[in-house]
């Protein structure tokens, strides 16, 4: 039973436009959420995170939104750049314990 789901396996977006990645979770005890970016043949790298006490966190071109009532979070990348082409994983943890990952969304940014 997947507790963290990324229902869109892939996303294609034009350079300069906004990329919106979505993630849903089922465990209401999750209190910390993260997004990771992964290039082929490399390990995931941490991108941005949000605590459950917030509903938005912004870092440069990346913004994460959290809707606790809907158990939904999203990552916005604007403007999208070709170097953003990668697989993005959302992850969640409960009280600092091990992370549960979603299945990933492959983003392709076209020049």
């Amino acid at each position: 039973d997947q507790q963290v789901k990324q229902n869109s396996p892939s996303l294609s977006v034009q350079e300069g436009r906004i990329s919106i990645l979505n993630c849903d979770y089922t465990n209401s005890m999750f209190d910390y959420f993260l997004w990771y970016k992964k290039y082929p043949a490399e390990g995931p790298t941490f991108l941005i995170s949000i605590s459950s006490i917030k509903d938005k966190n912004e870092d440069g071109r990346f913004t994460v939104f959290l809707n606790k009532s809907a158990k939904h979070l999203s990552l916005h990348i604007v403007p999208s750049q070709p170097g953003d082409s990668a697989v993005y994983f959302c992850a969640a943890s409960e009280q600092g314990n091990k992370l549960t990952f979603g299945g990933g969304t492959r983003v392709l940014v076209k020049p």
Partner: protein
Amino acid sequence: EADIYQTPRYLVIGTGKKITLECSQTMGHDKMYWYQQDPGMELHLIHYSYGVNSTEKGDLSSESTVSRIRTEHFPLTLESARPSHTSQYLCASSEGQPFVETQYFGPGTRLLVL
């Protein structure tokens, strides 16, 4: 910049061989993890450790074993490799602060068992 290393990066090996995948981190992190990831799939936690001499099995059943004799070192061993073990293995570590579980990943080991 996270300092976590994995060797080898790529490994092709025959069925029945014993292999050890190495993972080391220089950040002094207490928590370390092993994940298995097949192409296009989510990361599955197979082992984790909250400190020296502490090891636990993760959510995904695995025939591998781990040890944590030193804080910085968390090797994973397969006693007898099989084609079903073909996958990417990712090691990670974190500081273990409550409510702040940011894990730093190594580059991964791609294992192919023939």
